[in-house]
């Protein structure tokens, strides 16, 4: 399973590196979201700095939607799903591989967006350990839930509209917990954020486990 996961993750990341969709489209979109928030809040630096944790994670969430749609689109084009099914790879390995690829892209994006809020919103990053741990757990949860729902909506003509409806409610607890943990870290009270970190850990574990269990059922279809 792990070997298959590495193979699939490598394949997805190679496709992304060659197509440059993540760097040329998803990353600029994430920055655009940050800029639009500034317009919406009337470039009030005090409000922007205060709300930077929440705005950051909303930008990550929107970008995650694009990354997940892209990840499932790779498999639906040119009958790639059928070839994956016939390849004999473990479905759980395929799921974990796709999660890893999405998570790797999101982590790069999060670093870039972190620099973005420091520059645009005048936010100082404190509590680096909590900030990094939050990013890791939240990314694992978002990537797992996103890949799971991406598989559900794969191949559907209404995928673009259906995926946000399915994924955003599930990702809402991640948004909430990650924002709270970041707010605690940025305010210089990392101990207040540990309970939210635990919630993020539970969320990531549940969706990773569920995805591994359901991967076989989802891959055998269509």
């Amino acid at each position, binding site marked *: 399973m792990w070997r298959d996961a590495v193979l699939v993750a490598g394949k997805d990341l190679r496709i992304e590196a060659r197509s440059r969709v993540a760097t040329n489209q998803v990353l600029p979109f994430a920055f655009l979201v940050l800029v639009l928030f500034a317009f919406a809040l009337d470039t009030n630096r005090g409000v922007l700095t205060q709300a930077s944790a929440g705005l950051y994670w909303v930008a990550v969430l929107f970008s995650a939607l694009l990354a997940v749609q892209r990840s499932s689109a790779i498999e639906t084009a040119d009958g790639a799903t059928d070839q994956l099914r016939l390849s004999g790879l473990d479905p759980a390995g395929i799921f974990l591989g796709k999660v890893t690829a999405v998570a790797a892209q999101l982590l790069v994006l999060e670093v870039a967006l972190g620099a973005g809020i420091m520059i645009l919103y005048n936010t100082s990053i404190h509590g680096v350990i909590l900030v990094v741990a939050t990013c890791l757990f939240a990314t694992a949860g978002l990537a797992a*839930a996103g890949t799971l729902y991406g598989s559900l909506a794969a191949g559907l003509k209404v995928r673009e509209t259906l995926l946000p409806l*399915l994924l955003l409610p599930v990702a809402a607890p991640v948004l909430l917990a990650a924002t709270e943990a970041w707010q605690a870290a940025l305010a210089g009270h990392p101990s207040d954020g540990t309970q939210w970190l635990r919630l993020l850990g539970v969320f990531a574990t549940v969706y990773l486990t569920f995805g591994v269990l359901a991967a076989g059922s989802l891959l055998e279809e269509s």
Partner: protein
Amino acid sequence: MNKWVVPAVGVGALAFSAAAIVDGLWILGPTAEQGDYSKLLVVHPPVATIAYVAFGVTALASLLYLIPRTRRREWDQLAGASAEVGVVFCALTLVTGSIWGRPVWGVWWTWDARLTATALLLVLFLGYLALRRIPAQEVVRGRRCAVAALIAILDVPIDHFATSWWQTLHQGSSIDLLQPDKHLDTSHNVALLLGFIAMTLVYVWLVVKRYRVEQLENRYEDEGLTLALDARRAEGGIPVGAGR
């Protein structure tokens, strides 16, 4: 199923609903803390609990559909029927809660853990119903929907225990099955029981009706083409069933 059972459930649902309304509006007295607003107790906890039950039935039927040994079309139909009714009950939970919240809390809505989790539950199952509406092969659609239902059901325990896990404006449970008189007096317990029986019967009746509609829709999908061919043949004077 005996042909009298479903009409009997329907009549029972009507009778108990009428009894709960009469008891709630005219017999049950106001409480010292909340006055007449406490009468919403007859409706709100029962519809919320039945919403949980409905989504629980959907999840159980979905699980049975996902397991190859127990996979039957009927489980998928039951899951869909129960989810649809559950969404109605979940929406009613939010509406009745808001009606109560406006005079007691002073707001229609507050970002409390219980309320937010219930709203998420509604949106999750609306997504599930949207997934069900997308045309696909029966097995493909059934499997996708079953997975989506099992993901969505994870919100039910979060919603239920939200008042214990977080500090919420929403009060804790008013019902203690081991000590019924702990939070409520006998008259409120009776009214609550009437509400629970009424809503349970309404749920069962609606699910049975919706399940039958699902069966008819599937039958129409199965036989629709054959019937259309027969109709065209009949127009052309060709005997029905010829050439099959």
